[in-house]
């Protein structure tokens, strides 16, 4: 990391002919369509992963530690053997990894809003929700990267999917669909909070109880009745059930449909709310 030379010794570049040529060449091309514009913003998201990989490392490291810790520390006690527990735990760990990554959609948007670059985007003649849709689409790549890391670790530790690689890929795809819907909740949080740290804390605080009070770590039937009821309602439990089913090759259409319905519902409510808050924030 070199600090830019503010060097007074450096002669100022001569802004002559080249400047006039560049100014004269600024013809306006035809206006791009909404999809192309969203993809461009998605590309911006990719560049952010390239330049600020720390974010991805943060969110991936936590589930990696969880996977190692729960499998080897509690596996024997909970499921009789670490190997058996890994078979039970791994699909949930995949879900947890991707959902934590979704919080970063809100963090990234909040960071953007404090910078002048949003003014630039809002003064461009483009489809207005494009910066938001593009960012969330770009985040899907982030989810895939995080999911890949955790899956590789799971396989190394000995996880076996009965449905094979296709089952695992289908499971990852389903988690990404759910995370797409959930990320709109965090973009709303991102626009309501004042600082990126507050977004992260709020996001994690909201996710932690939902993740622990789900069927990720234990079978709900081992829980007290009132808790079991909550765990059964928790959408994350439905997602985990569907993901386990896809990896084992036993998923039903109903289990998968619930996940799509929740993702669609979250998008329908929180995407327009995000767009509205984005427009009105000064």
């Amino acid at each position, binding site marked *: *990391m*070199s*600090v*830019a*030379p*503010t060097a*007074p010794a450096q002669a*100022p*570049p*001569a*802004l002559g002919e*080249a*400047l*006039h*040529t*560049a*100014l*004269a*060449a*600024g*013809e*306006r*091309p*035809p*206006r*791009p369509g909404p999809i*192309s*514009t969203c993809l*461009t*913003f998605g*590309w*911006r998201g990719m*560049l*952010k992963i390239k*330049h*600020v990989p720390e974010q991805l490392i943060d969110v991936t490291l936590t589930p990696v530690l969880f996977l190692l810790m729960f499998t080897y520390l509690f596996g024997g006690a909970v499921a009789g053997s670490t190997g058996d527990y890994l078979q039970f735990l791994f699909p949930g760990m995949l879900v947890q990894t991707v959902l934590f990554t979704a919080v970063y959609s809100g963090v990234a948007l909040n960071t953007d*809003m404090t*910078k*002048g*670059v949003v*003014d*630039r*985007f*809002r*003064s*461009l*003649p*483009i489809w*207005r929700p494009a910066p938001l849709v593009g960012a969330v689409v770009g985040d899907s790549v982030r989810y895939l990267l995080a999911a890949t890391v955790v899956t590789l670790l799971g396989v190394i530790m000995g996880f076996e999917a009965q449905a094979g690689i296709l089952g695992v890929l289908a499971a990852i795809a389903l988690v990404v669909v759910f995370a797409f819907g959930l990320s709109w909740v965090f973009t709303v949080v991102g626009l*309501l909070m*004042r600082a990126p740290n507050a977004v992260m804390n709020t996001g994690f605080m909201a996710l932690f109880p939902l993740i622990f009070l789900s069927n990720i770590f234990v079978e709900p039937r081992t829980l007290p009745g009132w808790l079991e009821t909550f765990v059964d309602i928790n959408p994350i439990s439905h997602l985990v059930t569907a993901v386990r089913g896809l990896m084992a090759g036993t998923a039903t259409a109903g289990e998968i449909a619930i996940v799509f319905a929740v993702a669609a519902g979250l998008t329908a409510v929180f995407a327009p709310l995000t767009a509205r808050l984005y*427009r*009105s*924030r*000064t």
Partner: protein
Amino acid sequence: MTQTSTPAIEASGLVKAFGDTVAVDGVDLLVPQGAVFGVLGPNGAGKTTTIRMLATLLAPDAGSARVLGHDIVSEADAVRGLVSLTGQLASVDEDLTGRENLILLARLLGYRRDQAKARAAELLEAFGLENAAGRQVKHFSGGMRRRLDIAASIVVTPRLMFLDEPTTGLDPRSRNQVWDIIRALVGQGTTVLLCTQYLDEADQLAERIAVIDHGKVIAEGTPGQLKASVGQSTLHVRLLDPEQRGEAERLLARSLDATVNLESDPAAMSVAVAGADSASDAIAELVGSSVTVAGFSLGQPSLDEVFLALTGHPAEDVAESEPHGTIEGVPA
């Protein structure tokens, strides 16, 4: 496209309040096409809020404005296609490199991938940024960042460009570069609305200047008219030998028919003059006498002096109050 008869900006009675604070309190502006129009005022006068309304980022609470003939509220999208904005904060992505920022904007404006790359390279060269092109913007110096910011604003040459305090915080060399860029832009036919706190800057660049204070335009005219309204500039003289100050004072007072202020520096004095002519006559007389002049300068009235003359109060430095999270309705 010769629509020079259409004003670049035609605003009447623009009002914007944030909570109890009225940031803009009935601004009227008529900005002709094809020159730099300066908006001069201290921090918190309402300059930035006015620009943000004209650039369609904020909806006015009252009043209306047309930019190049298009209403800023009902035809916001058409306005966005004609203007570009270089805000007070650098309007570029600090995590991305200089080149990536320009490619991003070129793509958003409709350039194909290869065209966008070529356009970015062309702009980086034109703004003397080729060597820094692959570096993240957060590692740029202030001057480089400002140049990139302006380059990002002219990926497509705008008909009207808003520049909000483009040289604040820059060293003199970078400031001169920005000035050269602004002159080149205007030479190309772009109209520039330049907000600044510096009379000097407005004087250097602007054909006309509006002075804004407490959200209202309090004076408008050419830089010459504005300075004339202040009445006078100040001639500063320094002598080689403090012993001669008495004689110099007598000569200057007689030649200019004014009171000479003796400064705390025993070799220096200053006197108000009506213009450059009488100042040079007085200096000529001084040089022709036995007094040895070490140096002299004719000072521009400062923004403070302009404000004092126009408003009777010095330019206050009020923090611009644009709270985050204020809800208002900008139509899509």
